[in-house]
């Protein structure tokens, strides 16, 4: 890992992404439904250095995939900014969760990669050799060039997804649940592939995953997201060993760990509230075992964890 300078490769500033849904005529007049605003990402500041992997964890519906998509520019932000390589525009490549849905079934591998290489401005005569080089980099061969996605297994498809992302020579890749659709034995192959790429090329990753074991293994730093907001961030070791936010603590204690006997677990009651109408004050107050009056009244401000630079928590308990 190299962190050559202090300017992050990717940075988000007050990033928000809302989804507005307008019910149809009948739903409005008969069922009395109103316009709804889903606050999927609601004010996120984070940064990723060169050669670094930031793990983004959280339960389904917390906005982590939306955040990833806004950062690479698949969704425009509602407010705030993405800074990539110092410029105020999104960038980077993406590896998707579902290798069955993210590759066009009617295109051969040659076409899938060729399209990206064309975008990058690689001349026609060089595209084949460059495609082969990419395939070999992800553990496939030139023989796979004229095959269709259906002819590959899930793990091989995900390798093609990685090759496609690499075709643009990105310095930053958002990997959105890159292994959760794969079998355990194949998961490890893909994780090792991503790690190897980082060592070789110094590419940075935003690794979005609900699997905390995968995030722990891959990430230098971790950010925990809950209902559109980051609640805690820090170096992987310190966050896993010394979680400061009650949500992080509950999340970590809920992980089933191989071989470890059940420790005293913190059990969260209920489920995640809707992002359409998030609770006032701290987003986590409806499920928090340490809820105080102040938690309902105002949003927590970021607080540094003592003796641990870079470990920041958004919680009134720590203020």
């Amino acid at each position, binding site marked *: 890992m190299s962190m050559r300078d202090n300017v992050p490769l990717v940075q988000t500033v007050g990033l928000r992404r809302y989804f507005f849904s307008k019910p149809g005529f009948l739903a409005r007049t008969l069922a009395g439904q109103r316009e709804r605003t889903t606050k999927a990402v609601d004010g996120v500041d984070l940064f990723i250095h060169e050669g670094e992997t930031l793990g983004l964890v959280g*339960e*389904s519906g917390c906005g982590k995939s939306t955040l990833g998509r806004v950062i690479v520019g698949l969704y425009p932000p509602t407010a705030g900014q993405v800074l990539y390589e110092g410029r105020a525009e999104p960038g980077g490549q993406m590896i998707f969760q579902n290798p069955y849905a993210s590759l066009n079934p009617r295109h051969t591998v040659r076409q899938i990669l060729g399209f990206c290489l064309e975008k990058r401005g690689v001349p026609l005569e060089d595209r084949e050799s460059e495609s082969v080089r990419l395939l070999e980099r992800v553990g496939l061969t030139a023989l796979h060039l004229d095959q269709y996605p259906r002819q590959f*297994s899930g*793990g091989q498809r995900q390798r093609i997804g990685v090759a496609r992302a690499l075709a643009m020579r990105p310095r930053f890749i958002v990997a959105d649940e890159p292994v959760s659709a794969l*079998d*355990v*034995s*194949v*998961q*490890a*192959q893909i*994780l*090792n592939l991503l790690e190897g790429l980082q060592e070789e090329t110094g590419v940075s990753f935003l690794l979005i995953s*609900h699997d*905390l*074991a*995968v995030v*722990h*293994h*891959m990430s230098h730093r971790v950010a925990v997201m809950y209902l559109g907001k980051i609640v805690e961030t820090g170096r*992987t*070791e310190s966050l*896993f060993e010394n979680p400061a936010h009650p949500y992080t603590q*509950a*999340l970590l204690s*809920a*992980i*089933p*760990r*191989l*071989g*470890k*006997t*059940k420790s005293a*677990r913190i*059990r*969260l009651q*209920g*489920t*995640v509230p809707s992002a359409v109408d998030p609770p006032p004050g701290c987003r986590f107050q409806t499920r928090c075992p340490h809820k105080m009056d102040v938690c309902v009244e105002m949003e927590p401000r970021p607080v540094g964890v003592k003796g641990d630079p870079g470990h920041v928590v958004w919680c009134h308990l720590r203020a």
Partner: protein
Amino acid sequence: MAAGNNEVLSIQGLEVSYQTDRGPVRAVRGVDLSVREGEILGLVGESGCGKSATLLAVMGLLPFPGKVVGGNVRVNGLDVLKLSKKELRSLRGSTVAMVFQDPMSTLNPAHKIGAQMREALRVHGLPCTQDLLVRLLQEVGIPSPEAVLGYYPHQLSGGMQQRVMIAIALSCRPKLILADEPTTALDVTIEAQILDLLRQINRERGTAIALVTHNLAVASQFCHRIAVMYAGQIVEEGSVEEVLANPLHPYTQGLIGCIPRFQKGVPLTPIPGQVADLSENLEGCAFYPRCAKREPVCEKTLQDLLDTGGRLVRCQRYGYLEYAETAAAQDWGNE
């Protein structure tokens, strides 16, 4: 509750085959398995290893073109494969109940929760008073159960839907619950809640549970005994502590090496290659092409399950293999 001696489920030589255009796919190739009263058995393996097909065969629910082509299955002493459709219907739900992976697609979206719960009781000729339904929902930890009875499934979260499924499964007091990846579709905090609930049911009522999961960590937390399946066969079986601390089969060893272990700097060691293709005729050990410890003899000859004193293992090389001091072994040692 400790496991009794009565076998609630006993499977012998089960063979399941799917007839496809390209010939038969032998999804389950001779599985012997038993679950005793009060026991939680985990059936673990990767997708396509036959773990779900084994459970579905017990319930007589194999989807077309799947068929049981050999072996026998006894539930509470009854030979399931010889039962008529009517007898099978009365067995399902009352003696043995099933909880599926995706509660959203197993609950009927067009009927209210109350109606779906009543149906299960009515089919088995049991009374279905409002009080009873409320109590069943309370038992699985659903808040304001009276209101929930009038809800449609989409008004509940995934975790709550799964609780309703468990309430329905419990409504006729089954002796055995078959759970097919019951928490895979759920978030980790909700998964922990559902596993706690199932564990509590097992402890308080002595209900036996057969859990199918691809997640070794879940199995290690939840099960008393586990059976590891690969390519339609059991390759290793034993108490959960022994199998995970000292895996005997190279496949089990490989699986454990694939899982990130919350220890920095421990590299993952993937199993090379792909899961075996069951439409091909497998002569020798199905794991042979991927095995790190293979010998020429493994390619052509299939090993029976060896009993090594409570531990079962299907490997020619057993006795020659050593499982190094691994992270897994150390984890168990720490306790």
